[in-house]
């Protein structure tokens, strides 16, 4: 790894007094963060949060100054996704807090544990439309797991501690603590060792598990001929990869992953099928439609995963394991529900299942995989043109599949999911539920702080990259290294693809002109490269990896390429638009779209 590995140890050792005594609200913010093991926060100052910033130098917490608060939110989120620890971002009242909103919603939809701290006008000004007053707890109520308004110094410590507990327990999620300026300035007695100050969140009954669920689930699994595991984000979040592996090895069932589930089961394992859903590979979606049993683990049957619910997995019984009982039956009715941590569930379920091989089922899927391979873009003759799929495939090979890849949203995101084979949990950081463009660069900065010894790659579109490109400046100021691959197709590609397929090819507001990304990197004191041919790729990637600082690579790819297969929004999962077979290959009955699926 490069020498620019992030120095995580905050410059000065703590100078603050840790003994019980008088503290300001501002001091208690940082003291609690230290106690929670927070080594870095991402933020931006302003009037209502200045007392907190003023106290910061006394504590061993590194502050990363962002260029826009949205960036701070995504950094905290990326930090949490890459590490499993709670990410923290801080901003001032009013516009500072509202700039966080997109990032908070992004974390909420993907259940990412983050603590957002915002300054608020002094308590006597609340409700008066004071300068930079926004009802931030009101604004973020539906996009946080919980939030608090703190108006007294004495509540700062207990509420912040509770905030960390709420963010990481049960189904994780973002929380926000809005602290008035006078609560930061006021003071009270504080005993850092007194853990009882934290309010304990109420206990929750683990309800929703069907009677005899484990026995019945094991029985269903044992008799199934075509079982399929649907592995979701829950596997990654629960740290259940080893348990999933044991379950697969015992039951022989193949594994399809959701976008956020990628890496929860090694992509190069023979039982790994790949991603399911709208841009899932054909054999994966066919397997879903043909399966006689779906074992859904920590996933929520999102509409991008199921397509038309009426025709979804028509032959399958369904077992649903999720920590959140409100997910059971939300989109898909299930035969057996188990509401618990998926790691625990798998540990208990695996020994109850009979060892099995599922040879015929696996062979049948392999057959369909072979059919799809003839359409694979990687089989295209090298015409000298650069295809995004080639770029991502080559990046996977050159980084030996070990990089932490942080994507933005669009075509490149789907190509990444298809062509970068993730063998490790938390190796892919991507905004799934909200699909937030502009996520990648700041989330990668957060990931870099979380994993200072791992190689971090951004894969972003030319459109999304420009939404938060200002954070290049943050990379430069903090002296950190991320490698940025811009998949530059000159379009808002995913929208262009929909226009091509569903809107008569009318490219309204999707052609996009970009700055010279190489010069943009250089303007920030960073390094930029441009790649226009596949033959140039390896050398440039090698140069980027060995460069000490952040590198931007402008990959000029085919402009009007599309992501295949595609299940149109709301269509049956089996109704995929396939990549047109390359003209050099004669279409045979074996790879025709109309071919009936053998039942």
């Amino acid at each position, binding site marked *: 790894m490069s020498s620019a590995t992030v120095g995580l140890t905050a410059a000065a050792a703590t100078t603050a007094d840790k003994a019980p005594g008088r503290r300001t609200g501002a001091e208690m913010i940082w003291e609690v963060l230290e106690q929670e093991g927070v080594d870095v926060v991402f933020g931006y100052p302003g009037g209502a949060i200045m007392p907190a910033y003023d106290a910061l130098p006394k504590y061993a917490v590194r502050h990363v100054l962002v260029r826009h608060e949205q960036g701070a939110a995504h950094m905290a989120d990326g930090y949490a996704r890459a590490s499993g620890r709670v990410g923290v971002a801080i901003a001032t009242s009013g516009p500072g807090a509202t700039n966080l909103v997109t990032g908070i919603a992004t974390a909420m939809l993907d259940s990412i544990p983050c603590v957002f701290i915002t300054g608020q006008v002094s308590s006597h000004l609340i409700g008066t439309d004071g300068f930079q007053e926004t009802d931030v707890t009101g604004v973020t109520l539906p996009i946080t797991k919980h939030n608090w308004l703190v108006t007294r110094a004495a509540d700062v410590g207990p509420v912040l501690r509770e905030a960390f507990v709420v963010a990481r327990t049960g189904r994780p999620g973002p929380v926000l603590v809005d602290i008035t300026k006078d609560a930061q300035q006021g003071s009270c007695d504080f005993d850092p060792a007194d853990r009882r100050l934290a309010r304990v969140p109420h206990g929750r009954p683990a309800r929703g598990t069907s009677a005899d669920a484990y026995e019945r689930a094991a029985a269903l699994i044992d008799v199934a001929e075509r079982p399929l595991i649907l592995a979701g984000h829950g596997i990654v979040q629960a740290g259940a990869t080893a348990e999933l592996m044991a379950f697969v090895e015992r039951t022989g069932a193949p594994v399809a992953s959701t976008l956020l589930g990628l890496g929860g089961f090694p992509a190069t394992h023979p039982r790994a099928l790949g991603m399911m859903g709208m841009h899932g590979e054909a054999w994966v979606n066919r397997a879903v439609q043909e399966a006689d049993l779906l074992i859904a683990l920590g996933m929520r049957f999102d509409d991008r995963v199921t397509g038309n619910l009426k025709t979804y997995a028509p032959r399958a019984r369904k077992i649903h394991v999720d920590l959140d009982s409100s997910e059971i*039956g939300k989109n898909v009715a299930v035969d057996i529900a188990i509401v618990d941590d998926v790691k625990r569930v798998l540990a208990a379920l695996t020994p109850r299942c009979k060892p099995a091989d599922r040879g015929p089922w696996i062979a049948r899927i392999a057959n369909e995989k072979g059919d799809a391979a003839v359409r694979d873009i990687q089989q295209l003759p090298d015409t000298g043109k650069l295809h995004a799929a080639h770029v991502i495939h080559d990046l996977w090979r050159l980084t030996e599949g070990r990089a932490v890849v942080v994507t933005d949203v669009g075509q490149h995101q789907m190509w990444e999911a298809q062509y970068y084979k993730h063998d490790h949990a938390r190796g892919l950081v991507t905004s799934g539920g909200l699909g937030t463009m502009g996520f990648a660069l700041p989330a990668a900065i957060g990931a870099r702080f979380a994993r200072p010894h791992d190689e971090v790659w951004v894969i972003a579109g030319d459109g999304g990259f420009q939404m938060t490109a200002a954070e290049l400046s943050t990379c430069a100021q903090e002296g950190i290294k991320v490698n940025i691959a811009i998949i530059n197709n000159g379009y808002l590609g995913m929208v262009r693809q929909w226009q091509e397929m569903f809107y008569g090819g009318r490219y309204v507001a999707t052609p996009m002109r970009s700055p010279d990304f190489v010069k943009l990197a250089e303007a920030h004191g960073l390094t930029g490269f441009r790649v226009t041919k596949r033959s140039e790729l390896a050398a440039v990637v090698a140069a980027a990896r060995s460069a000490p600082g952040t590198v931007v690579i402008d990959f000029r790819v085919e402009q009007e390429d599309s992501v295949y297969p595609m299940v149109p929004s709301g269509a049956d999962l089996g109704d995929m638009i396939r990549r047109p077979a390359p003209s050099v290959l004669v279409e045979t009955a074996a790879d025709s779209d109309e071919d009936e699926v053998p039942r």
Partner: protein
Amino acid sequence: MSPALVPARPRLRTFVATVEDVPGVLNRVASLFRRRGYNITSLTVGQSELSGLSRLTIVVACDDATAARLEANLWKLVDLVEVHELAAGEAVERDLALIKVKADKTTRAQVVQAVELFAGRVVDVAPDELVVEIAATRERVDDLRRVLETFGVVALVRTGAIAMPRAGVDDPTRTQSQSQSQKSASGT
């Protein structure tokens, strides 16, 4: 098949929730209903027997699957101590209404008689109208209202239902909240 596709058989259900008496808690409950598209018939909030805890009565029309998910979603609210659906027939339920009804010399006696029949009370009188109060089940309040409409209802205001399990019925709404109040009392 998805529960959403099963022909919904919605019926009115009553949930009783115990929540922390903190600012914004009603907003959180209401926001949940709005966001998930539940149709609230009534939502009331007030004190409970436990200090620091309020009790909500929520009446909502939905089918079984939706009710189960609603309850699961309510459990996710951090300020919620507990929530239970009250079984029909095992709960006492009251809705309070004030009804201003037209009543002059010629009709007043009939109005008063009707009100008494429903065990309501006349609480204010003017030469050509009365204010009537009734605390009864939702259905009985509806019935009285229909009767009074024949005389002319000028204005009506209702609280929405409050409810608790009947006397002698094991009260699921109190078990955990009591241990909760002990928990706060011991300061942990």
